[in-house]
């Protein structure tokens, strides 16, 4: 997946940079508080009013045909006798498409023109394997041996000296493919438990962390830089946690028992805290609907819509600088299977919400579902998902060289960003 070896040879630059950073902090250890404040302040100046990209991964292969329903196509209703969404139940119908009724909680965003749906998006070639497709979507530079995730390339492109808080995955401590690469990244469940050893005993804490810093810097390699970054992070996490824990803003309710809601609540707090976050990856599993598509996707969409609606409210004054994009590794088969579900397919729908979006409408080079236009019985792809991401990045991060983030793609904008 990435440079896994612990020799450290692959990421010497990172280790060195982290160690230099660490050394800088250590030399000011006598004035811990102001040093701490200094780090925080510089980040705020650097990126306090910067734009943020939030990538919500709908893992499992979401059924785009149920989310953005091509209601004018008889082929859709013919292929899904027990699972099609009735045309008269759809929201915001135009001549071709309509939204699944469970998106109702996002209607305000749609009506305000802050949410757009894009159809027939996907990988340039079909890949019905969850795992390979997900790697490809997240890594976005197929064929590159370096396996550097695109979020990481974006972070590297935006900052001269990437900071460990620039790219953050919320909801898991696993580092996903999109984040892997030379810029330091952080994967966390929440911030309250990022305190280092002995948080309540300042003297002991400083002696113990001082030793750990020296030991991990001495060892180097993957584990060495993880350890050094861990210490830098724990020093700042406490302050961030205070802000995160203030949320959600009054009047905002996330759905109960929703992990996606928890992750987005943390994310909103983090963005409001102005600590220089540029990209956040959020994971939402449970979209692999091989059985009982109808009620399962109804619940999945309802949860997604409630969470995103709450998230936008919760961002408060920061909402204008945050753009959310939903991605999924592939769409589902047009034809339903024997268990009222749908197996793995190809073309899919993508949603873009928030800052910079010309929403309230659908965008697509719609290939139709006519039999001659299907790919092995599935919706074709007419827009590379990397082109969608490029369009967002160009609009929201104009200083970024997108050709370095997505090398070698053919860019064909749909015009959904301002």
């Amino acid at each position, binding site marked *: *997946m990435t440079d896994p070896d612990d020799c450290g040879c692959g990421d010497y630059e990172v280790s060195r940079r982290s160690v230099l950073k660490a050394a800088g902090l250590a030399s000011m250890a006598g004035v811990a508080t102001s040093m701490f404040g200094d780090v925080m302040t510089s980040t705020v100046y650097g990126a306090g009013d910067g734009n943020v990209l939030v990538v919500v991964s709908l*893992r499992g292969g979401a059924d785009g045909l149920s989310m953005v329903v091509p209601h004018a196509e008889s082929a859709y209703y013919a292929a899904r006798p027990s699972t099609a969404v009735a045309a008269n139940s759809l929201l915001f119908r135009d001549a071709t498409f309509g939204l699944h009724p469970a998106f109702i909680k996002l209607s305000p965003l749609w009506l305000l023109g802050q949410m757009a749906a894009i159809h027939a998006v996907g990988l340039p070639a079909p890949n*019905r394997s969850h795992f390979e497709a997900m790697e490809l979507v997240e890594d976005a530079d197929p064929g590159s041996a370096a396996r550097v995730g695109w979020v990481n390339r974006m972070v590297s492109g935006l900052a001269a000296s990437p900071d460990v808080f620039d790219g953050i995955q919320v909801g898991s*401590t696993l580092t996903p493919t999109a984040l892997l690469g030379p810029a330091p990244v952080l994967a966390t469940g929440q911030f309250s438990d990022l305190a280092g050893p002995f948080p309540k005993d300042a003297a002991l804490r400083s002696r113990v962390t001082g030793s750990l810093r020296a030991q991990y810097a001495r060892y180097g390699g993957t584990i*060495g830089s993880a350890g050094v970054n861990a210490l830098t992070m724990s020093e700042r996490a406490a302050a961030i946690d205070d802000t995160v824990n203030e949320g959600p803003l009054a009047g905002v309710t996330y759905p109960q028992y929703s992990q996606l809601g928890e992750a987005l609540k943390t994310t909103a707090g983090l963005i409001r805290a102005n600590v220089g976050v540029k990209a956040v990856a959020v994971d939402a599993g449970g979209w692999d609907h091989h059985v009982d598509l109808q009620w399962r996707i109804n619940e999945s969409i309802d949860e997604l819509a409630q969470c995103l609606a709450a998230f936008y409210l919760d961002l408060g004054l920061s909402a204008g600088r945050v753009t959310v994009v939903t991605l999924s590794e592939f769409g589902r088969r047009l034809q339903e299977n*024997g268990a009222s579900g749908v197996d793995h397919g190809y073309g899919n729908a993508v949603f873009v919400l928030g800052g910079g979006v010309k929403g309230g409408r659908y965008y697509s080079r719609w290939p139709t579902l006519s039999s001659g236009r299907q790919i092995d019985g599935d919706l074709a792809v007419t827009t590379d998902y990397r082109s969608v991401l490029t369009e967002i990045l160009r609009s929201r991060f104009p200083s970024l060289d997108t050709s370095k983030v997505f090398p070698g793609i053919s860019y064909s904008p749909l015009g959904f960003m301002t």
Partner: protein
Amino acid sequence: MTRMSASTTPKVLSTPNQHIASRFSFGVNEYLISDIGSSRSATKWLERQFAWSKLGDTKGDAVINWFPHLRDQPAKAWTNHQNEDHTAYAYGRDLCAYTLAMKVATRRQVREVMADVWSNLFYIPMGEGRSFPWRYSFDAMIRSRSLGSFRSLLRGAVLHPAMSGWLNNSSNTKYGINENLGRELLELFTVGRPAGYDEDDVKNSARILTGFRVKMFDSFAASYDPELHYVGRIRVLGFSHANSSKDGRTAVNAYLDYLARHPATATRIARRLCVRFVSDTPSSSIVSAVAKAYRASDTDIKATLRALVRHPDFQASKRKKVRTPIEDVVNAARVLGLRPTGCSTERSFPLHLLWMAEGVGQSQFGWPRPDGFPETSAIWASPARVLRSWNNHYDLAGNWWRSAEVYLPARKDQLPSAWPRALGQLVEHQARMLLGRGAPSDLQSAVASALNLPLAYEFNSAAEVTEWTWALIRGAVLNLPEGMLR
């Protein structure tokens, strides 16, 4: 056995033996070192471990008795779930706690490590609705076949009612094909994507698997119904079968054997084993040597592992793998001498291990997708993970969660028998006991600094080593970068 820790400088294994033991166990503790001592080398120890049925294991055998529900019949489990007497989640949690307790307690460490490897390949998450009544039966099957042939393991796993439920084969019939299991059989369990199968192969792979039934959300009874089996020629890659009989089980077995013996499966399994036991980026030389042994032995797992250990890359990979959070808490428990003795309360040690690993981002059987946790270790080297593991190490070293149902050796029985001892000597003693090697010099200074004592400070008896001092020494040893690696 004489207590190793009684010595001022406890003996450590030779580096090659330590490496074998560290990769093929969940933690090198003094019982394991004593087993290796009586086998005279780790290679011979490995052979004795391969013949696990001949190894007495009273501590491991006791563990299942703490979880009486795990042996409930599937129909009973479903009834219990519906009545909320014992829900699917409770069954799942039992299985997780059982699994962690086994990792710590069993003397059959190699079998346990291999059961972990195969459970992660044929992965079924805990407490999942369509599989939970059969999940322990699946687990027991994996454990019993984990050092046999891959061919037998593949049949056992793919055709098991738990797998049938989880990957929807129970709703795959000739009247409505469900591709889920047929696809993952090719992609995840055997040949893998590079073998070049196409979508017709996937459909055929699903067709041949029709006929296996589970009475889902009812009695969960498993059966084979020839009336639901798709009849007609099946072609998948180079496999072809007339499949003309209503009872397709002979055809299915031939198909699974074909896949198990396929060169692409050999390479894929070899690579997976190398990633687990050698390095995240194994050389093509070791992968092909291991694949060759797999094929030459007709998929024998022991022969495959022997080839892996024999290859020079294996010994060259010392401390190149980051322990996963689960491996990390289990290793810490084992080397610290903590052992579960039951699981009847919310504070019992096996559950504490479960929550500790979960807090670091890895919950036993908590991965949501059929591909299992990543076997690569760099993915576990995020800063947040390292930070939380540091805290876990102190919590375990001091038993600061105050776990119930855990055996804790008395401090005096873990310390040298000769007194006085200087602080520096105690640090060296614990580095040898917990890491199997001498203390790096920055460990000595780290402990002295944490305790605010000079290294020459003398303790005159075991009683003078307070609980606090002891936890700080042992936490610092486990928190070394070397302590995070295997």
